[in-house]
């Protein structure tokens, strides 16, 4: 007998051990997310995927589905909080979309569009973060890092290399490259690594490929992010 829970009134089937996010994605229902990736162990850090499960707020990418659970996602209240989180991500880094190679393919940008983010609202930090152009094939622009840890997980769990790590705590958390020099060229990182493919924003960029796809034909020009879930 298949078990179900309800998501915004819709009945969603799930298997034992599945998270709310996994079951929703399977059923073709989009829940905004940034640090979740179906191929990796959830990290539960960005909180964009927050839902109300039986009246309590929780991260849907880490919360296991339970039979009869009542889950709310697309409410004005929750989306307002998701929008505020997104705005904070924008002001904490330097996100100048017009000059970003990831623009149009960026999950942060597309999620902000989805949430109707008209402005960053908060005061900008304008942090000073150097780029790392040392590697022959890949550029790292730390100005756009949202600390989702997907590159950390991919490099550690798939590539078996541990090239990236999150260092520091709280507001001081930042992404580092595991080399004495701190430079990507002093690691065994390669373009063929899974970690080279997973960054949801414009940090890990393949050199000499920027702006290859014309405006109008980029991933999220053609389809808003809410229509990109597996089940559809």
């Amino acid at each position: 007998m298949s078990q179900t829970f309800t998501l915004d009134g819709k009945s969603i089937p799930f298997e034992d051990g599945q998270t709310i996010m996994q079951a929703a994605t399977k059923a073709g229902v989009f829940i905004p997310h940034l640090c979740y990736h179906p191929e990796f162990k959830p990290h539960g850090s960005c909180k964009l995927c927050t839902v109300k499960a039986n009246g309590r707020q929780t991260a849907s990418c880490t919360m296991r589905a339970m039979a009869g659970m009542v889950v709310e996602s697309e409410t004005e209240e929750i989306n307002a909080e998701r929008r505020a989180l997104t705005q904070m991500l924008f002001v904490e880094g330097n996100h100048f979309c017009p000059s970003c190679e990831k623009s149009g393919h960026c999950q942060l940008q597309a999620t902000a569009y989805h949430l109707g983010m008209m402005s960053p609202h908060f005061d900008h930090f304008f942090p000073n973060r150097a780029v790392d152009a040392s590697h022959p094939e890949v550029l790292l622009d730390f100005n756009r890092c949202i600390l989702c840890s997907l590159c950390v997980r991919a490099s550690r769990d798939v590539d078996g290399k541990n090239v990236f790590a999150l260092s520091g705590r709280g507001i001081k958390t930042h992404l580092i490259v595991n080399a004495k020099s701190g430079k990507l060229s002093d690691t065994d990182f390669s373009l063929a690594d899974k970690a080279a493919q997973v960054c949801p924003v414009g940090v890990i960029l393949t050199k000499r490929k920027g702006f290859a796809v014309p405006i109008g034909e980029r991933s999220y020009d053609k389809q808003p992010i809410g229509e990109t879930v597996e089940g559809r």
Partner: protein
Amino acid sequence: MTAPKKKLKVATTSLAGCFGCHMSFLDIDERLFTLLEHIEFDRSPLTDIKTCSPDCDIGIIEGGLCNAENVHVLREFRKNCKILIAIGACAINGGLPAQRNHLQLTAILEEVYHSGPGLANGMIPNDPELPLPLNKVHPIHEVVKVDFFIPGCPPSGDAIWKVLTDLLAGREPELGHGLMHYD
């Protein structure tokens, strides 16, 4: 869209912007005639009127704040306009000019006027008429309350048209997929 009895007064300006948003505004093309049935321009580069009337209905601000005069003009707009709209990336997050924000202003002036390649006997401009640059470039919402935002670099003529017609019709402006762009 039902025509209001009295035409709405609209003022516009470009602060630390490139005039791209104003050009995009003109991209609404012949819809400008429809618009002019409902609005009249007050202070704007389009009219060359230099100060806002005290009873403007809508102020449209392109560009962020990179010098003291920008702040002064922005405050004049906020004081005289019932609704203030930030148009374009620079007004909304500082945009391209704000990419100097991680550098020291003195170091920038030094390099641009003294030590850059091909410069000889350079002098940092110091005419008292020149507005003083700010240490950092700021989006306008960091200084005054902004009522609506039209993102884009520049926003398309269609996006601008959508927001203005929504406002004229008394609706909350909304840009859907395709019109909503940060680039």
